[in-house]
């Protein structure tokens, strides 16, 4: 974990957009080339800064969605209609454009293969992003840490990384993905169709005696109710890590 505590001054770097991937109608991944990227640990984030022609600056934090085993840094951005930064990143940005970022930062909501498991990952919407970095590292490293992902989306079309999650869950290394859809469901949907609740967590969570590590990321109400449910189920509070979206301001 020494890599998380790079004792150097945090500097703004100019990243170049190498690729853009439309994940869902409202979500896009930015694949970035970042000069002298110091490496990251899944769960860490970067601050992105945009400067307008008149000098006005807007800054937001985005979780890194890529595995540290890759060369590039992927951020996945959900377009918030009234947002100041996300409409630009998710709709206007083009391959070859540059943007300023600094990081990685964060040393609390992080997972490395050395931390083991079993792992319970709980995501709401684009809260999947930092958890995806963990899953991608787990996969790239050939880790067989027993892992369950409980992932809440509005509809099947809104499930980010759906195909990649299906592939990783089918690779026989012990990853189980449980989707729940909160709004519309396809006709033949046999899966869960409600918000994440205590009963769902009770069914998905590892026995507390296994000392699981839990990471929950999503909108604040989802994160707080899920964390509370896990504590009621007997999970050790210090092994439940949370990342709330809150008023990100898009």
């Amino acid at each position, binding site marked *: 974990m020494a890599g998380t505590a790079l004792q150097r001054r945090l500097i703004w770097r100019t990243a170049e957009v190498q690729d853009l991937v439309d994940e869902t109608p409202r979500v896009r991944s930015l694949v970035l080339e970042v000069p002298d990227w110091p490496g990251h640990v899944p769960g860490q984030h970067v601050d992105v800064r945009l400067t307008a022609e008149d000098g006005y600056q807007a800054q937001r934090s985005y979780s890194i969605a890529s595995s540290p085993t890759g060369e590039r840094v992927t951020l996945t951005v959900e377009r918030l209609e009234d947002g100041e930064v996300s409409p630009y990143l998710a709709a206007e940005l083009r391959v070859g454009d540059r943007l300023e970022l600094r990081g990685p930062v964060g*040393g609390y909501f992080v997972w490395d293969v050395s931390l083991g498991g079993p792992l319970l990952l709980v995501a709401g919407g684009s809260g999947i992003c930092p958890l995806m970095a963990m899953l991608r590292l787990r996969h790239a490293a050939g880790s067989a840490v027993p892992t369950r992902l409980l992932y809440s989306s509005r509809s099947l079309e809104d499930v980010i990384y759906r195909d990649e999650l299906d592939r990783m869950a089918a690779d026989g290394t012990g990853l189980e993905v449980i989707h729940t859809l909160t709004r519309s469901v396809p006709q033949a949907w046999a899966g869960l169709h409600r918000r994440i609740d205590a009963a769902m967590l009770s069914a998905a969570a590892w026995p507390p005696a296994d000392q699981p590590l839990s990471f929950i990321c999503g909108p604040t109400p989802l994160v707080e109710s899920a964390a509370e449910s896990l504590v009621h189920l007997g999970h050790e509070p210090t092994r439940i890590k949370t*990342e709330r*979206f809150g008023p990100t301001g898009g």
Partner: protein
Amino acid sequence: MTEQALRLDGNAAAGLLREVFVHELTDARGACAGCGAVGAMGAQHLYMSPRSPGAVLRCSACESVLMVVVHAGGRFRLGLQGLMWLEMRDAAATT
């Protein structure tokens, strides 16, 4: 907006805190001067919005203010009245 909707995790202040501290602060532990609870800074409650000039970190156990960071007028002001102590890992030390 409700208080719950405004709440973030201390983790979200990692960038701001790295402007003031040399160390990554979200995995640093601190003790609340109000209730004595000890925990990682990243696990505390954070109130910060994109247009605000700073952030307030409150104890996740008792909601006392632990730390206030303001960045305005070309200065940082750091208020640490709510912390009895703050302990960070020395990354240079071999473990």
